[in-house]
C-alpha cells in the first residue's frame, strides 16, 4: 500500500521539476513561431509577390510567362524537372565550387609553377610538363610511388580474400551473429590517422611471430628493393591492412544473405559437396560485389596519410614552397603530385574491377 501512495507524489515531483524548463521551452517555441510570422514570412510573401508581379517572369494559369509574350506551359514533366533541380540545387552549386572547379584548377596549376604570396595571391607561370618530369626524376617521390602501387596491388586481393572468408564464416548458422559482425566492424569506427600512426610506430600492427619469421628476413634481405619494400611494409602493418576489410565484410555478408537457400538444397540433392557449393554457388553470387569492395578498399587505403608519405609531402610542398626554396616547389608541384596519385589510384581500381568482373560477360 505504501508504494502505491508514493508513486503519484513522485510523479508530481517530476512534473514540478520539469514544469519550469517545459514552460520555458514552450515560450521559446511560441517566440520562434511569432518571430517567423513577423520577420520571415513577409519576406517569403514579398518574393512571391515579386515573382508574380514583374515583367520578366510570371506564373499564372499553369504556365510561365516570359517578358509577357513567351508562354511556357507547366506540364507535369516540366514541374518535375523544376522541383528536382530545386532539391539538388545546393548540391549542384557545391559540385561546381568545391569539386569541379578545384579539380580543373589544380589540373591547370599542375602545368604551372605556382606560389602564393600575400600581396598578389597566386603567381603562376606556365612550365608545361616540367612538374611531372621533376616528380618522375625525384629520388624521394618515385620510390614512394612504387611502394604505394606495390602496396595496393598486393593488399587488395588479400583484403578481398580475407573478407570473403570472414563473411562466409559469419554467414553459417552460428550463435551470436551480431557479436561477430560487431567485432569485425569495430576497426572502421576507430581507425583515425593519428591512432593508426601511433600503433604502427609501436609495432602493434604486425604479428610478432610473422615479423621474426625466416620468410620475412629472407624477403627483406634477398629481393630487390622495389618488390621487397612494399612486401615488408605490408607484413609490418598486416593487421592494419586487414582492418580495411570492415566494410567489405558487411558488403559480402549482405550479398550472401540474398542467396536463395533453395539453391544450396538443390545442389546438395544433386550430390554437390560443400566445396563445390562454395565455388559454384556462393562465389558467383557475390562476384558482382567484389568490384564495389575494390573501389571502397582502394579509396580508403589511398586516403590514409602516412607522415613522410606522398600526400604528406604534397602538403609540405604546398605550404612551405616559395620561389627561392630549393626543396619545396609550391602549389603547382603539389597539384602534380596529387594528380599522379589520383590517376594511379583510378588505374589500379580499373585493373582490379576488370579482373574480378571480367568473366561475367562469358556467362
Amino acid at each position, binding site marked *: 500500500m505504501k508504494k502505491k501512495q508514493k508513486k503519484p507524489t513522485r510523479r508530481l515531483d517530476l512534473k514540478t521539476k520539469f514544469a519550469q524548463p517545459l514552460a520555458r521551452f514552450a515560450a521559446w517555441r511560441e517566440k520562434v513561431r511569432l518571430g517567423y510570422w513577423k520577420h520571415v514570412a513577409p519576406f517569403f510573401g514579398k518574393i512571391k509577390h515579386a515573382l508574380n508581379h514583374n515583367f520578366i517572369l510570371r506564373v499564372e494559369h499553369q504556365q510561365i510567362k516570359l517578358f509577357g509574350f513567351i508562354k511556357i506551359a507547366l506540364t507535369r*514533366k516540366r514541374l518535375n*524537372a523544376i*522541383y*528536382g533541380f530545386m*532539391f*539538388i540545387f*545546393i*548540391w549542384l*552549386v*557545391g*559540385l561546381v565550387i*568545391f569539386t569541379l*572547379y*578545384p*579539380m580543373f584548377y*589544380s589540373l591547370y596549376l599542375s602545368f604551372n609553377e605556382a606560389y*602564393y604570396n600575400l600581396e598578389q*595571391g*597566386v603567381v603562376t607561370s606556365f612550365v608545361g610538363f616540367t612538374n611531372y618530369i621533376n616528380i618522375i626524376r625525384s629520388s624521394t617521390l618515385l620510390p614512394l610511388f612504387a611502394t604505394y602501387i606495390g602496396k595496393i596491388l598486393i593488399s587488395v586481393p588479400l583484403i578481398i580474400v580475407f573478407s570473403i572468408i570472414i563473411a562466409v*564464416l*559469419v554467414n*553459417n*548458422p*552460428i550463435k551470436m551473429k*551480431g557479436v561477430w559482425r*560487431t567485432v569485425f566492424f*569495430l*576497426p*572502421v*569506427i*576507430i*581507425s*583515425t*590517422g*593519428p*591512432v593508426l600512426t*601511433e*600503433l604502427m610506430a*609501436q609495432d*602493434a600492427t604486425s604479428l610478432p611471430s610473422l615479423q621474426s619469421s625466416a620468410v620475412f628476413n629472407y624477403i627483406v634481405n634477398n629481393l630487390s628493393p622495389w618488390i621487397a619494400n612494399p612486401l615488408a611494409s605490408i607484413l609490418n602493418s598486416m*593487421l592494419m591492412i586487414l*582492418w580495411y576489410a570492415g*566494410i567489405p565484410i*558487411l*558488403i559480402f555478408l*549482405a*550479398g550472401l544473405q*540474398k542467396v536463395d537457400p533453395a539453391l544450396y538444397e538443390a545442389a546438395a540433392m544433386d550430390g554437390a559437396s*560443400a566445396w563445390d557449393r562454395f565455388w559454384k554457388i556462393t562465389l558467383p553470387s557475390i562476384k*558482382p560485389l567484389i568490384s564495389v569492395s575494390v573501389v571502397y578498399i582502394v*579509396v580508403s587505403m589511398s*586516403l590514409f596519410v602516412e607522415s613522410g608519405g606522398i*600526400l604528406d609531402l604534397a602538403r609540405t610542398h*604546398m605550404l612551405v614552397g616559395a620561389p627561392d626554396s630549393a626543396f619545396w616547389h609550391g602549389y603547382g608541384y603539389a*597539384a602534380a603530385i596529387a594528380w599522379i*596519385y*589520383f590517376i594511379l*589510384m*583510378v588505374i589500379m*581500381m580499373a585493373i582490379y574491377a576488370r579482373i574480378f568482373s571480367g568473366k561475367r560477360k562469358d556467362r
Partner: protein
Amino acid sequence: MKKFDKKLLIPRLKRFFFGMKFSDGFIYKFTIYILLISFSYIYLYPILYMFVNSFKTVDDLINPGVKWIPTSLDFENYARAFQALGFPGSIFETTWYVLKVSVAATVSAAVIGYGFARFNFPLKKLLFGVMLATFILPSQVTMVANMLIFRNLNIMSTQWTMLLPAISGQGINAAIFILIFYQFYKTIPAILMESAEIDGASQFKIFRSIALPLAIPSFIIVFLFSFVWYWNESFITALYVGGQITLPLKLQVFRASYEALFPPGTPGAELNEAIMLAGNMVTIFPLMLLYFFAQRNFTQSIDRTGITGE
C-alpha cells in the same frame, strides 16, 4: 533403467560429430568457432595491445615477462593523458564541432537524395553518375585549389571550411550518404506522395510531412557515420581548420603538449608508450561508446545503401 546398447554407440557418436549433413555436426561447428575466434583475435590485436599497455607502469613495459596482464593497473597514465589532451574542455569542443558538421552533412544529404529519388529531370543520370564518381576523388586532389578558394572567401582556419562543403553535399564520403537516402526514398511507394499531392499538398510539404518522418532510420545511420568519419578525419581538418580543433589533431601534437606540461627532466614524468597509448584510448573512447550503443545501426548500413542489388 534403459539398457546401454553398444551397437548404437558408434552411429550416435558419428551423428554427434558429423551431424545429419556434416554442416550441423560438432566438428564443423567447432572448426568455425575456432576459426572465428582466432581471426577476431588477430583482428583485434592492436586494440587489445593498446588497451592493456595503456595501464602498464614503466616497470611492466620494460619487463618482457609481462605481456597481457599488467602487475598493477596504473591509472596515472590516464590522468596524465587527460591533462595533455586538455580534458574535459577538448572533448566538448570536438563533439560540438563534429556535431555541427555531421548534422549539416546529414540534412543536406536528405534533401539532395530526395531530389534524385523522386523527380525526373534532364541530365539526371549523368548528374547521379557524377555524384557517385565524387566518391573516388580524393580530397587531396582538390586541396590545392580549395585552399585558394577558402583564402579568397576569407574563411581559412575557421569551421566554415568544413561546414560549407558539408552543407552543399561535398563533404567527406557525401556520395555514400546521398546514396543511402536515395535508396530509402526509392522504397517509399509513389502512391503515398501522389495522394498527398491530390489533396493539395505542395512538394515541400510532402517532403516535410511524409518523406522526412519515414526516413528517420536513414537519418540515424547517416548521422552516425558522418559523426564517426568527421571525428576521424585529420588531414583535411588540420589543413583547413587547424588549431587542433578535434581530439585526433590534439593527439598529433601529443608529444609537444605533454612536454610543455611536464618538462623533460622532472622525475617520473617522462613520456612513455603507456601514456601515449592512454592518449589514443581516450581519443577513440567516445566513438567506441557510440558504437556499443548503436552498433546495430552501423552494421545494418550496408543493406541500406542497396549496393547488393534489387
